[in-house]
């Protein structure tokens, strides 16, 4: 099982500012190991963020997103104390879901 995501969700004005760090190798499939063998691709393909059962962001990624991907975005209509839920799914079918409580912020 992959390591948990680090998620920060803060109110800024009336918007929720979400910053996420995912733990994933994001291997491109183009590199070779010391023996010259291709290292198989292993990367996150789908990310979805939901709030109150509604999708607030969905993404499709290729192999060129950096290792341990970072994602930052903002959405309207969130409230402090409520939860934001994030799920990723990779090309090997591995999957991880984490959630964070929206902090008050300024």
């Amino acid at each position: 099982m992959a390591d948990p995501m680090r998620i920060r969700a803060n109110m800024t004005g009336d918007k929720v500012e979400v910053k996420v760090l995912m733990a994933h190798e994001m291997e491109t499939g183009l590199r070779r190991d010391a023996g010259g063998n291709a290292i198989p691709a292993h990367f996150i393909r789908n990310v979805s963020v939901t709030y109150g059962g509604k999708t607030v962001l969905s993404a499709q990624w290729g192999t060129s997103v950096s290792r341990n991907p970072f994602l930052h975005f903002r959405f309207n209509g969130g409230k402090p104390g409520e939860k934001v839920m994030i799920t990723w799914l990779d090309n090997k079918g591995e999957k991880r879901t984490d959630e964070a409580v929206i902090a008050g912020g300024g």
Partner: protein
Amino acid sequence: MDARRREVLKTGGGVLALAAAAGIIRPGEALAQEWNKAAFETKSVAETVKALGGSGSTPSSAIEITAPDIAENGAVVPIAVESKLPRTQALAILIEKNPNTLSADFEIPAGTDPFVSTRVKMGETSNVYALVIADGKYFHAVKEIKVTIGGCGG
């Protein structure tokens, strides 16, 4: 077993049911999230636009790319894209000279700001395109990012 699983995944959508039947992917899970394999295999900006359903795109000054002019480490290049176009539905990051052009594609539902910031790998100095779909039309902005150490050797 691992090789077989990869084979199944590689062939894409048509065999998802088969994969589900074999217990590799539970039904409902994989089907809920599709992945545009064709778009992620494109080798040029024009091809990517087509694979994402457009026939071409118009340059727009209402799209802003925030990224360094020079990236010292191509493995981690911070890129933010913001669109001021009304009814922005999607934002995509394209890196012209990477082995595959399309890096990331974000769907922006109503209520979410047309802004996203992430980090990408760049093999060499290249033009980076922000492709925006707004009100069904395709727009783009472009910025050159110079890379001093490529990001594909890791």
